[in-house]
């Protein structure tokens, strides 16, 4: 499917935000002290839209994904500001039992490691059936029939036999399909996919992405796809959000973004893609490493690694998001710079 036809098919429902995150900040306490992990996150996912969330390890992508459904343990976290509206309801203010009713029914989640994402002690079909029974209150037989149907939907061959298998009897690709079947079992309006293909080999990766694309079209579901792989994002998403050190650095429609990113960090990521570099050259890499968890620079968080940073300008004041023609960017020099995108 081309990008244009995808946009057209989703057009009628466009405009109403299914998920809207406003000024969300979160601290985590992995040890004794709270560290700032997410800072002033704004994002919006419209009905039927596929939004990509990209960033290095430790940028806060997964924490953000978990926060969307209140899955970060309250014991070790502290919300500093903001709200997360799903269908107009503030998720951060919901009680745990109301959250549980939404999870799995209105929002499905899939994760990176299909190898460990399923309970090794139960048959995979029973695990999916438990989720269906939890949200729909149907009988065992009905749930089982639905499981078989869903397994067919996610292209698991011989679904009756596979439903009776234990996780260790299935390949990584099959397990991820089971996880997808579980996530979409209640036909959610939003699917959060946290690195769904990272642990899979390339062929399986392509199949899983193709499956997700098909399911999105058939079920008119919004998807938040978290990945560190820009190639996957480019292939799959309508819009992209670039995260760095707990902040959203740039938010843009996919087409202008890849050709003309507005944030130096986004530009550096795009140029570091191996497929965009001439063969036999040394790979261009982004020097330095992201700041440690919780470290907050006085100015722009990317300034110390940025080749366009200007002393006295970039490292003095915190930078806020400002609108661009295709989205938003968190860089005070955005209008002065013309940055390179993926190798043209």
């Amino acid at each position, binding site marked *: 499917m081309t990008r244009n036809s995808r946009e057209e098919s989703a057009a009628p429902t466009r405009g109403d935000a299914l998920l809207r995150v406003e000024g969300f900040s979160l601290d985590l306490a992995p040890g004794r002290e709270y560290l700032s992990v997410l800072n002033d996150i704004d994002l919006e996912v419209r009905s039927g839209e596929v939004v990509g969330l990209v960033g290095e390890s430790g940028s806060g992508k997964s924490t953000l994904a978990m926060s969307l459904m209140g899955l970060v343990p309250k014991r070790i976290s502290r919300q500093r500001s903001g709200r997360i509206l799903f269908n107009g309801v503030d998720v951060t203010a919901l009680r745990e039992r109301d959250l549980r009713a939404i999870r799995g029914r209105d929002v499905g989640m899939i994760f990176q*490691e299909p190898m*460990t994402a399923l*309970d090794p*002690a139960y048959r995979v079909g029973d695990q999916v059936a438990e989720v269906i029974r939890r949200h729909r209150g149907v009988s065992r037989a009905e749930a089982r029939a639905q499981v078989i149907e869903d397994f067919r939907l996610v292209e698991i061959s011989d679904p009756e036999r596979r439903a009776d298998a234990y996780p260790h009897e299935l390949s990584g690709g099959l397990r991820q399909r089971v996880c997808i079947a579980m*996530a979409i079992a209640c036909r959610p309006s939003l699917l959060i996919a946290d690195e769904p293909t990272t642990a899979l080999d390339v062929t399986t990766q392509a199949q899983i992405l193709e499956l997700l694309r098909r399911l999105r079209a058939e079920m008119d579901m919004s998807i938040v796809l978290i990945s560190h792989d820009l190639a996957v994002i480019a292939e799959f998403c309508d819009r992209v959000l670039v995260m760095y050190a707990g902040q959203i650095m740039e938010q843009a429609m996919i087409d202008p973004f890849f050709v003309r990113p507005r944030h130096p960090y986004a530009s550096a990521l795009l140029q570091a893609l191996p497929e965009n570099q001439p063969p036999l050259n040394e790979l261009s890499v982004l020097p330095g490493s992201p700041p440690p968890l919780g470290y907050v620079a006085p100015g722009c968080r990317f300034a110390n690694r940025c080749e366009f940073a200007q002393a006295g300008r970039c490292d003095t004041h915190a930078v806020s998001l400002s609108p661009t023609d295709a989205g938003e960017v968190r860089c005070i020099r955005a209008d002065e710079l013309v940055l390179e995108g993926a190798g043209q």
Partner: protein
Amino acid sequence: MLTFTIRRLLTLVPQLLVAALVVFVLTSLLPGDAAIARAGGESATPELIAQYRAQLGLDKPLVERFIDFVVHAATGDLGISFSTSEPVSDILLRKVPVTLSLVLLGFIFAILIALPLATIAALHPRGIADRISLAVATSGIAIPNFWFAILLVLLFSLTLRWLPATSYVPFSTDPLQWFLHLLLPAITLGHALAAELTRQLRASLGDHLRRDYVRTMRSAGLSEISVVGKHALRSALGPAVTTLGLQVPIAIGTCVVIEAVFDLPGIGSQMVQAVFSRDIQVLQGVILFTVLLVVVASFLTDLAYALINPKVRVQ
């Protein structure tokens, strides 16, 4: 599962044979001579000693005596006590229920302490329950059983007069009295067993609660009761079940002390008595029984493990 059970059952036969051999050799090597003891000591005439030796079958070669021992044991004939002339199987039938009751109640008690304590502790690390579970584990390991038993007797029997301090009432006579008489001994045993079990379960449940599948279950909106009770706890029980199985022989050993403190007519006190009277036949019977108990316990452990973990069944 059925083939696993049968295969595992078949391995019991050689296990028991080896155990019987060890028991036989060990008791034969015991210093002292039952025939001399029977004849009234070293001052007895050689003729009398030889007569008793023939009567007890001690004049036959070791191999023949071992085969006799196994064949008879298999048919339930464990010989006749050297000191009381009572059939060993009758003695066992009388004493085994006491010890079995004690061990069973002790394990139930241990599980009743460990399971809720470990679960709450794992759900709230560094919380109150976590501290209590650590205290239980430490005290269970550190406090000697006989001392703990004496403390219980002092408090509940002598001061409060709630529970009997000694003797045993068979279950068939009066179930309530049976339970009341065994309560303090079972608490003593259970306290010791709960220590290891709580620690093991607390650690393994804490580990499983951090696993990816728990996150998956939570993200699918399952209730905490299902996530913890049905999913995490089931897998976490694996190591705990192993611990339980390994504790059976320890529990029987502990019974020797506990039966002495509470004056219970069980296997433990019988074993001590048999050792002092050089009653090899009784000793063999008692040890054979405890070995049987341990072997069966390890069989049940494996079975439980296979029930919990489907991967074990295929191997």
